[in-house]
């Protein structure tokens, strides 16, 4: 009769293992929780940053300031050149007066009082609306190169490009991604090491028991399963704690983003897919670590 151990037996034994070293189990679970929380945080920050960058890319515009000396002909040439660029959605040319009017609206009324009309900046400008679906950093780089090319054109005084800020964001996200990846690997490895050590101690403290089980005819699987379940349970506990931490962080960060930066972005640190990943990832990390420990130290 080749039947495996009953679930009831396995759970009773695993619970006994946990009871045997409650502090070590707790430390393992907390380590997994911290690792998963940070990994989750990095993943969601990067995901949301990409989302924000994408949104910003949707409403990208370019202001091409034309020199005072430029003739109508020069402006028309620039306009033609701009229109040739793939992805240019619309052009709007403002005269000096129109630009000044726009600036006046932006300035504080008190500031304008008694101010000479000519003191308000105004310059002929071509507003370029770009239909760039900025999915990647490459798109932005291409735009920047193009912008520089326009700047080189005679009668173009200056080009103001919002994407310069986007470039910075892209760079930050890229650095964050690298750091996040390295940190996640380190954190997960240390969490696994904790589980590995806890299980190893459990195996050592039960050497006699393991030998007896083996002598009365227990299969290696029967002896190992409670240790594996213990590891998986530590991982599950870690995942649950990570969910709570991510949930709290989410609330805290959301109010920060809404109240301080006035951004009404829709995002979540704990979307359903994240919950699923944690529920699979936590036990998987614990199971993998205990499997390594049992494989190495539990000889039946």
């Amino acid at each position, binding site marked *: 009769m080749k039947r495996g151990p009953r679930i009831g037996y396995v759970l009773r034994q695993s619970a006994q293992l946990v009871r045997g070293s409650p502090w070590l189990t707790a430390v393992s679970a907390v380590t997994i929780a911290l690792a998963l929380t940070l990994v989750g945080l990095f993943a969601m920050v990067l995901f949301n940053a990409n989302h924000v960058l994408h949104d910003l890319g949707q409403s990208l515009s370019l202001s091409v300031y034309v020199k005072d000396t430029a003739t109508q002909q020069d402006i028309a040439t620039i306009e033609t050149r701009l229109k040739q660029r793939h992805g240019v959605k619309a052009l709007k040319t403002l005269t000096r007066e129109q630009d000044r009017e726009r600036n006046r609206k932006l300035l504080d009324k008190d500031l304008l009082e008694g101010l000479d009309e000519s003191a308000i900046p105004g310059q002929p400008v071509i507003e370029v609306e770009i239909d760039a679906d900025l999915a990647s950093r490459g798109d932005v780089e291409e735009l920047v190169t193009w912008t520089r090319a326009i700047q080189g054109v005679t009668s173009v005084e200056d080009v103001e490009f919002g994407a310069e800020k986007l470039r910075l964001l892209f760079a930050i996200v890229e650095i964050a991604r690298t750091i996040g990846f390295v940190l996640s690997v380190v954190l997960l490895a240390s969490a696994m090491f904790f589980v590995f050590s806890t299980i190893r101690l459990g195996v050592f403290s039960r050497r006699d*028991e393991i030998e*007896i*089980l083996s002598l009365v*005819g227990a299969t290696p699987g029967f002896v190992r399963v409670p240790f594996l379940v213990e590891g998986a349970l530590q991982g599950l506990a870690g995942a649950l704690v990570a969910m709570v931490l991510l949930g709290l962080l989410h609330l805290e960060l959301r109010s920060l983003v809404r109240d301080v930066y006035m951004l009404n972005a829709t995002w979540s640190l704990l979307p359903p897919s994240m919950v699923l990943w944690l529920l699979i990832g936590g036990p998987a990390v614990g199971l993998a670590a205990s499997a390594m420990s049992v494989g190495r130290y539990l000889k039946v």
Partner: protein
Amino acid sequence: MIQLYHVHKRYPNGCDALSDVTMRVREGEFVFLTGPSGAGKSTLLHLLLVMERVTDGQILIGGRNIHVLRDASVPYLRRNIGVVFQDFRLIGRRTVFDNVAIALEIMGLTRKEVERRVGQLLDGLRLTHRAGAYPGDLSGGEQQRVAIARALVNEPAILLCDEPTGNLDPDLGHDIMNLLLDVNRRGTTVVVATHDAGLIERYGLRTLVLARGTLVEDRPRSGRLAPIERGPAAAVGPDPLATSTAATSAGAAAFADIAEEAP
């Protein structure tokens, strides 16, 4: 039931623990295995339990050649061999009940079935009142009976005992022997390793004598089997296993389903 042919066991340090041992124990027999310390008694028991493998020769248990048994099949062989150690080998953190239950739980029996069978056996061995106790709280005799209960609970075809009376005072040792004889009467093949000459003399059963790793004497049953006495300290009742479900049901047939021999 147990056959050894020219069995040789040499340890990695070059020490020959057994040399050219050939012997046979028939189904239902009660055999003493004796000899001075270092004669090879324990090594022989280890080989029968496949805790170690022979260096040379063949061992057949229930007709199966355990020399060619795959590691994965060893647990299934062990389920048909009950074993009682001199130092009892009980698990300190498990209760008496759970210690006995192990042998059934490894077979995947339901908790209900485990409770029924362990309950009956503990009852037969008058250990019911100790079911919830831990081994550390038991007397030596009680611990030995728990160890025997664990060895018997899954009704093995063979019972191996390594110095089962070694750690007990003579009266308790006597009780344990009576218990083993009862088990044997119910059909289980029993092998008792002991260096207690008085014990062997008293029971007059077949005795295999080992010395320096070789079988030097196969002393047949004397015929003057000592009556099974019920000493004043007979903690073991008139028929301790009477409530057990069945005697060893299987005999050599128990080994038939241990498959997967290596080619």
